[in-house]
């Protein structure tokens, strides 16, 4: 069992994992955590006229747990993701349409090595790990579907343990021992778009957690001060040296562009 502070393994993201949806992505949290497949249909007709927004895009988020039916917890996460996406998606580009995001939880983290066994994702468990993966998966899905966005956002989960240590991306066992859990989402230019906390903590701890989450999302790779990254193709090392969530998203996008670069060239002229 490793009790290191940093994530031992970076999250994984693959774009376009489904065939029928307009855009899709599979996101796996660090250390084989919560895995979510996102399917994005955009732009589609709004099913109910009352939901139609005359000057913007209606965003519908659907989160489906891997077993059982979605309940209060899922509805809450859906609402949070919808509100976060509203701030990044350029909805006025496609008025009177719908951005439909379906998130399917495919696997949750479980640890049976301890007596009693611990499993994430149950109705009584925290929703913050699902929220983190779900938000990252929806952003990836939106990227794949060609949704126009102001900026790309990424989320990270930070736990504060009893002895005051900050753990980025805590595992299911570590989460049980944390006094508080925090989710922060940042856009690529470093602005905070989502904050969710659970448990008891001081304002100082919370601020520290935000810093840890910021570096987990933005990474520490060579960035210009506006958040842009020079993509010259030379920095292709995959070693984990401050590889943040946004770097993972960027790498997934790179892989996708390389994979069907030829087709895109043909269809874009």
């Amino acid at each position, binding site marked *: 069992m490793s009790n290191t502070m940093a994530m031992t393994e970076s999250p994984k993201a693959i774009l376009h994992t*489904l065939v029928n949806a307009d855009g899709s992505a599979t996101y796996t949290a660090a250390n084989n955590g919560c895995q979510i497949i996102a399917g994005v249909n955009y732009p589609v007709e709004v099913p109910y006229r009352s939901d139609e927004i005359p000057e913007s895009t209606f965003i519908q988020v659907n989160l489906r747990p891997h077993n059982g039916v979605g309940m209060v917890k899922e509805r809450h996460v859906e609402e949070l993701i919808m509100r976060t996406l509203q701030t990044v998606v350029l909805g006025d580009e496609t008025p009177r349409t719908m951005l439909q995001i379906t998130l399917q939880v495919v696997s949750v983290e479980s640890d049976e090595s301890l007596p009693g066994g611990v499993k994430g994702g149950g109705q009584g468990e925290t929703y913050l790990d699902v929220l983190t993966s779900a938000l990252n998966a929806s952003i990836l899905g939106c990227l794949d579907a060609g949704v126009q966005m102001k900026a790309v956002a990424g989320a990270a989960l930070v736990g504060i343990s009893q002895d005051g240590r900050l753990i980025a991306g805590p595992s299911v066992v570590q989460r049980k021992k944390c006094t508080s859990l925090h989710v922060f989402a940042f856009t690529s230019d470093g602005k905070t778009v989502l904050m969710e906390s659970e448990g008891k903590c001081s304002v100082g701890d919370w601020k520290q957690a935000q810093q840890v989450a910021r570096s987990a999302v933005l990474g520490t790779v060579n960035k210009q001060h506006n958040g842009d990254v020079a993509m010259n193709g030379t920095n292709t090392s995959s070693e984990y040296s401050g590889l943040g969530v946004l770097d993972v998203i960027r790498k997934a996008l790179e892989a996708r562009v390389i994979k069907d670069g030829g087709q895109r060239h043909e269809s874009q002229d």
Partner: protein
Amino acid sequence: MPREIDISNIERNFILEALGQDVRVDGRRLDQLRDLNLEFGVEYGTVTLRLGKTRVHVQVSAEVTKPLEERKFEGVFSIVTELSPIASPAYEVGRQTEQELILSRTLEKAIRRSNAIDTESLCIIAGAKCWSIRADVHVLDSDGGLIDASCIAIVAALRHFRRPDVSVDGENVTIYTMAERVPVPLSMMHNPVCITFSFYHGGETILLDATRSEEQVREAEMVLTVNDWELCQVAKLGGSAIDALVLLKCTTTALAKGKEINGFVARKLAEDATRRDVGGLIAELRAENDR
């Protein structure tokens, strides 16, 4: 309201004309299934099945509940199928389509009502406690053959699933975690497989495992459910009439295909079991129990 894009007349005629010459658009033989692939998750009872472009994810889970009043000695088994817009924009959230209804009813008939699971073995204390087994079917991509794909995936997931071991001491029930005792597999009575036949040109051309475009131009369909020995179910919901002899011929084909598919699933399950064993998980647990 969103709906599936109707197939164009040109495509329809093309497919039908090709089928008239015993040629399928994707080059398969008439009785050939698409590539079948099974992936098992880390957890027991997690299966992702790919049948060509169709992709189905099944999660089997168990919890302890009170048995039904009228069935005190039996556990509960349910299959939940809900088509979400992830598979196709034509599926709406919270609105059941006819296709969805047929899918869930057929699976219910094929697996649950054919007693694939021995529900009596799920009983812990008669009338008080029993296992409730739930299979959640998530269709991730739909390109035809949903019934066949879901059925294979559910049966594979049920065969892969392990429930925690329990011990009963009078009124007290102890549920052991996976780490304390080796989890037990479900007791399966048989392994049903659904095979869908599609009919064209008045029943002259018979196709197995039709893709979505082939499904859209067919005249009739028939779902046969078979296990390793016998026929469990015949479902023919409308469409053109089929000759009795054709039905008999289909039954023979279905039995052969069913055996083939069950063999494939068994092989994949065995592969997964060895993989898990080499990983040391099961060996470790067994060692713990020996002490």
